[in-house]
């Protein structure tokens, strides 16, 4: 049986196509869009991806409106029941706004939007996306954001683990953190600024992101 995955779509999401394609092209995953107005049903999706973009224009704070959608309000119950959530870029911002992940994302230390390829170091396992064997691996993926400077007053390592660190920090984030992960009920929540879904195609010679999707299939199928 294939792993069921949903990509939540908000007005203003713009990495939704990329995420859907990256998931769909992974053997063993069956992916679909999920419109933000609909609640996320429990025990339906094993993977839920919140894609990048500018949900609702992000004219207030990035993710501040999206967190009020039916999809986001119903997400904790689905995760509790076993869904694994990955928020990428704007998705990470939305997860933080929803308080499903700690800390906050402030404007980049350079004050400007930054779009470039970065090297990410895998710091820990993160079921189902990363395995123990992946620890220490370096992944090449793009970043593209203006509010990606992750800060947190105090990190409770028992609860939240930094999964990715930048080799060269592009935005001034705390301890070079690029992504964090926590368990949540029977499921989990991971948020990251870089875009693994844009690095999932061998034709582009940029395919390190595939590791996440392939691991998920291996773990959940």
């Amino acid at each position, binding site marked *: 049986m294939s792993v069921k995955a949903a990509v939540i779509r908000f*007005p*203003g999401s*713009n*990495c939704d*196509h*990329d995420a859907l*394609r*990256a998931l769909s092209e992974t053997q063993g995953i069956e992916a679909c869009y999920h419109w933000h107005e609909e609640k996320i049903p429990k025990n339906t999706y094993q993977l839920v991806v919140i894609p*990048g*973009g*500018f949900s*609702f*224009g*992000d*004219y207030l704070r990035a993710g501040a409106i999206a967190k009020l959608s039916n999809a986001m309000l119903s997400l904790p119950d689905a995760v509790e029941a076993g869904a694994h959530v990955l928020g990428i870029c704007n998705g990470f911002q939305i997860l933080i706004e929803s308080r499903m992940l700690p800390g906050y994302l402030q404007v980049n230390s350079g004050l*400007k*939007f*930054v*779009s*470039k*390829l970065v*090297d990410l170091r895998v710091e820990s396992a993160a079921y189902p996306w990363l395995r123990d064997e992946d620890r220490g691996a370096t992944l090449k993926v*793009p970043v*593209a954001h203006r509010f990606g400077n992750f800060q947190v007053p105090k990190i409770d390592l028992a609860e939240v683990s930094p999964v990715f660190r930048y*080799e*060269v920090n592009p935005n001034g984030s705390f301890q070079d953190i690029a992504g964090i992960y926590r368990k949540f009920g029977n499921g989990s929540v991971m948020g990251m600024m870089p*875009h693994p*879904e*844009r690095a*999932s*195609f061998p*034709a*582009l*010679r940029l395919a390190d992101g595939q590791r996440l999707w392939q691991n998920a299939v291996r773990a959940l199928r």
Partner: protein
Amino acid sequence: MTTSEKDLARLAEAVGLTPVEWDFLKGQVGRLPSETEIQMIGVMWSEHCSYKSSKKFLKKLKTKAPAVLQGPGENAGLVAFDDRRALAFKVESHNHPSFVEPFQGAATGVGGILRDIFTMGARPIANGNYLRFGKLDLTKQRFLLDGVVSGIAHYGNCVGIPTVAGEVRTDSAYNGNILVNVFSLGVVDRKKVFKAGTATPGSSVMIWGAKTGRDGIHGASLLASADFSEENAGDGQKVRVQVGDPFKEKCLMEATLEAMTNLASDLIAIQDMGAAGLTCSTMEISYKSNVGMTIALEKVPAREPGMKPFELLLSESQERMLAVVKAGSEDKFKALLEKWGCEGETIGHTTAGDQLLMTFNGETVVNLPVQKVQDPPPFETPEPEAPSADEGRDLRPWTAPNEWDVLKAMLGVPSVATKRDIYQRYDSTVGGGTLLGPGHEAAVIWTGETPDEFCGVAFKGICNEQWSKIDPRGAMRANMLTSLRGLACAGARPLGYTDGVNLGNPKEPQTLWALDESIAGMNEVAEAYEIACVSGNVSLYNQTVVNDQKQNIPPTIFAVVVGKVDDVRKVRPSVFQKAGSEVWLLEALSAGNDDYPQGSLYERMIRGGLSGLPPFDIAAEKLVQDACLRGLEQDLFLSTRNISEGGMAVSLAKACFGVDPDREPWGFEGDLLKYQTRRETLLFGEGGGRVIVEIDPAKRSELMKLGMEMRISVKRLGSVTDKGVFQLKPWMSGSVTELFKEWSSVFK
């Protein structure tokens, strides 16, 4: 003349109509036009909308070629890409608005060009921008640069279209008139193309997207089509600049593309609302489809109460579309638009005949015979005339300063220096298809879809306005050949091009001469490559004040060439890949041993101007480009790089620097002692038909064989190292980091 006729004549003059046009209008309508009608026609017959000065020259453009599916005249041009898909693309200018309000001016420029693409039914997949500023040591120019870049980033990043290529150059001639040209490209199913000219009588007319406000009124007629100077570019003009909302655009784009898929058979015709908003879009659809239209203006969703009919008609509020849909299907469209947070309102219907009838609360305000008033009367343009030959060519004698110092100075020239600090502010990877982005010879986007899984699209556009200053025809030939060579370096074959024309005052014979000559230059290349111009834009009245005198900008024409890559796996980057590999020169047009580097940046630096253009030859270009394509197919190269501005020395240095600032630049060890060419020409000459390639030393004989087969010369230049030294024996040697610093400091 009665008093009211005098008042109307004064209004006609105020909206830019000439006395001849005013008389013509009265004749065509058969009565005195109303105030609102005069306002509308003022915009429709403006230079910006009617192309009245440039039209007869543009007609000479070669617009037919095997790949062309839609030439100039629609929202964007179309070329066949594969059996199933077509590419829609176009370049457009937003110069004057960007000078008045750089952030919104540039942002709405991006918005406008995106709408042109998705109105055709195409999903935009890549953007580019071609910018000109004045001297960057002026605070005002730095302000404009930052505003324009922020505006482009704000809009493009939010809509989620990757900005993957562009050009930034500076010249004091742009001090009072910067150029902001934006390009967009989309992919469309050949069977699902939508147009403006397909409306039928008895259908409903809907307005989609944002509400109509009071912004941008008279932008097209009084800002883009009149004499422009710094003094009149003050706050008074700011109301003529539109305000953009990229989130609205994104939603409108998704809604429109969804409607084109799910409600295709109910959607009859569609036109985006750009210049002159509702006026231009209603008249375009009526004119092209040969139908009439009846519109109730009070039904147009307005942003504020009390808007007058002429304001509704002339507003250039952004993110709006005019659609003609099957009667009875309106609610389906409304529901779909609502899902995306967009307004959808039925404002009228199409009729048989050609009358455009508009009422406002029951009162008729417009009643125009569209076919008769769409075009202005024949416009008297002066005879084109070449400028006097030796104007401004007081050149210093040739000297030969230290080569290392020259190279360093060149790397710090804005057009050569890295634009990294600019392009890192543009999202260049959204869409997940960017194979070669900014910093490479050409942009390449992977567009593979089963069954053609590995194909891609490439594009490149350059314009060396220093060449256009002295020889617009030769300049366009050289510019296009350079772009085509860039495509070949990226493994792409050309399909077509779009041209963004930026010129000075069309009332001057020299301006029209430059247009005529530029078109001739583009046609020469288009003929040779069997491609055509499929879309474009003309921006006139680009002038800057020098010593109290208005001076035209140099002719600046962006011919952006679009091509197809058959297999993206064969594409190689434009920067060196590894230490130990060899670097070779592919050359089809070698300079004579005693030739000076005419037409080069070097000549400009040494002599203060240019004595002519560098040598370019179409046949030689084709040889080297074919060799490039063949070599890539054979997996012969590790990287490829064009030789263009700054010559071979600059190309080698840039290939060492790479696109990733977090990595140490490569070194280069080269020996040029054996070459007979004059040293400054060998190092800095900009003659066409030359490319540098990086190969594995084991492939040397294969490369030589390629050279023989393709009848070009191949010469070994040296090797890539990781020693941090840039050396071209016997003339220069030094730290590559020192060069890198010069190259990186300009746009910080």
